[in-house]
């Protein structure tokens, strides 16, 4: 049986019906975007940083085999075990084998999108390994059996009562607790004994440095540093695209990352791991899982520049008003919509359409990925591969015919403007036009720019 495409529009509709959640979600993410803007305005060199970051990443991606080999050699020299995982299955097997070798039954871990991508918990838990997410947001999502809805703030779609309910069910706290400080404290109290008695620790990572064999983890809660240092066994999982050439290049990326993500100048913890601690053991798993294929896609390879800051999600009007879970994928928002189809073209065929094409994602991207252009290009690819439903395809065909011919377009616009004023609602807000759901069309301009120009400017020029 063919896999069914994610019904993003329908899931978004459900999200839109819950006014308090929708309002908070929209405002919270927009607040993050505004804080990012404040940071940007403080730094006159912001655009230069973005340009540098983009250039460094593009250079590194074009030299990926050499830099990965350099990283591996240096990391090994420092006593790190380096593993290569071609896909999710191999990643999980490697992690499982390391844990089995140490007879580890309890794993504490910090947030990692790669382990989500590999569904590692789903692999380890049936094998008798208890996996405890230690990041607060990620833990809330684990306890609630949901995927993270945002790459940086995994539980951003939840309100305080939702967290209170999840914690009451799992930590025996008061279900009516409304003080976020008390709830955060409950997580600290619950996590500490688990951390102190765990057999192994795991983290993701933000950067690999080829020059030194270092990997870097940027976090805020302190849970990643606890997860990596307490047990003596540290496994880190990173996508192969996370690499940069030199230690000094970190300056560019660290300055951009948290400013773009949360609007803070740096994460509370920026931790550089270059080798195991005394008496400990350290493993790095380098994960491909489709990345080497993506590198060969002319229109889409630059999506590998992504540093997972989430700025494109925070600024996206569709993401803010549909929620990360509505994308039905590990990666949501604009960046998710261009990454996900590379994992499964049919299943995620609807996601590149979850965009207004306003280009805001591209404008805020710290590594200058042309996200909205890639969204557009994905639409073309999906149309060519017949992964688009009939109605959308036919409407696009019609639109293409009209927009391709100026005379037809102008005739259509003039009659549309006349029609928009007079048509009954049912003609505009029907099932053929999902844009009409939960939103009103702005009033049509009385006159098109083209006809105004003809009347005013052309006349004046002639006169």
């Amino acid at each position: 049986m063919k896999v069914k495409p994610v019904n993003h529009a329908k899931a978004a509709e459900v999200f839109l019906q819950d006014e308090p959640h929708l309002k908070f979600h929209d405002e919270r993410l927009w607040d993050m975007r505004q804080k990012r803007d404040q940071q940007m305005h403080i730094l006159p060199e912001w655009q230069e940083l973005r340009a540098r970051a983009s250039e460094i990443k593009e250079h590194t991606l074009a030299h990926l085999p050499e830099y990965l080999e350099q990283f591996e050699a240096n990391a090994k020299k420092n006593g790190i075990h380096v593993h290569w995982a071609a896909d999710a299955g191999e990643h999980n097997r490697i992690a499982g084998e390391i844990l089995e070798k140490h007879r580890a039954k309890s794993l504490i871990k910090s947030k990692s999108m790669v382990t989500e991508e590999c569904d590692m918990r789903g692999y380890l838990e049936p094998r008798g390994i208890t996996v405890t997410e230690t990041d607060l947001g990620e833990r809330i999502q684990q306890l609630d059996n949901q995927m993270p809805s945002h790459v940086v703030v995994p539980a951003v779609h939840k309100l305080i009562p939702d967290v209170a309910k999840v914690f009451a069910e799992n930590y025996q706290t008061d279900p009516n607790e409304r003080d976020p400080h008390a709830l955060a404290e409950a997580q600290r109290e619950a996590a500490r004994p688990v951390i102190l008695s765990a057999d192994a620790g795991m983290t993701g990572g933000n950067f690999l440095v080829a020059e030194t064999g270092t990997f870097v983890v940027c976090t805020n809660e302190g849970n990643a540093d606890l997860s990596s240092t307490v047990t003596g066994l540290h496994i880190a999982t990173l996508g192969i695209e996370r690499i940069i050439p030199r230690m000094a290049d970190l300056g560019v990326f660290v300055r951009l990352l948290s400013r773009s993500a949360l609007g803070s100048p740096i994460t509370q913890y920026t931790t550089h791991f270059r080798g195991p601690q005394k008496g400990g053991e350290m493993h790095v798993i380098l994960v491909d899982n489709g990345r080497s294929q993506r590198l060969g896609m002319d229109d889409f390879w630059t999506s590998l520049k992504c540093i997972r800051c989430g700025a494109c999600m925070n600024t996206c009007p569709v993401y803010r008003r549909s929620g990360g879970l509505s994308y039905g994928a590990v990666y949501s928002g604009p960046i998710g919509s261009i990454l996900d189809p590379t994992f499964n073209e049919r299943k995620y065929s609807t996601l590149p359409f979850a965009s207004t094409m306003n280009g805001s994602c591209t404008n805020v991207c710290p590594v200058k990925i042309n996200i909205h252009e890639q969204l557009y290009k994905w639409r073309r690819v999906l149309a060519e591969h017949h992964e688009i439903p009939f109605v959308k395809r036919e409407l696009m065909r019609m639109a293409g015919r009209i927009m391709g011919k100026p005379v037809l377009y102008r005739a259509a616009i003039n009659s549309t403007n006349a029609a928009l004023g007079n048509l009954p609602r049912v003609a505009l807000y029907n099932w053929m036009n999902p844009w009409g759901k939960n939103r009103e069309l702005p009033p049509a301009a009385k006159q098109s720019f083209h006809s105004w120009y003809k009347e005013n400017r052309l006349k004046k020029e002639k006169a």
Partner: protein
Amino acid sequence: MNSREMILARLRSNRPDPDVYLLPDIAILGDQDRSRARFETSLAGMGGAVLERQGEETLAAAVARRFPDAKIICSAVPDYEGTLHIEDVTSPQQAAETDVMVVRAPFGIAETGSVFLSEAQLNHLNSAAHLAQHLVVILSEQNITANMHTAYTERQEFHTAHYGVLMSGPSATADIQGVLIRGAQGVRSLSVWWE
């Protein structure tokens, strides 16, 4: 062919033309101010604090004043006693009992108010810096570098330490309805003492 060879082979055949994408020079951008004032402003922005010296008081007196209820004060510096020394702490479980940890940072960063700690400052018990409830960091004004670019180009620690953490204020979270909470899972507070 094993996975390593397979991945590398695929990358070699799929990558864009390497000659087109050149590596830019190392960037030293931004404000080069490495003053104590800038460091303190940045530190406050990240939720950290300065432990101000009152009169001629010693560090011990200042710690006692700031943390009157502290029972276990773990010192990782030779010139301060505390109630126990880090060399006497043998496990993370024992380190978790610590109320206040006192440590000396080799450098700080003015742009972000960050302090650097590695195994060299923590007697290889890296978890101690995160299991303590509060952290007091001794820092010298001479050892402030201007920003992230200067830190990564000037400081050799990034090339020598196995574990190197830049701590910028205390642990924090905003995962519950966006409310910023200082003191998440690591230290609840971070104070800098100037020497």
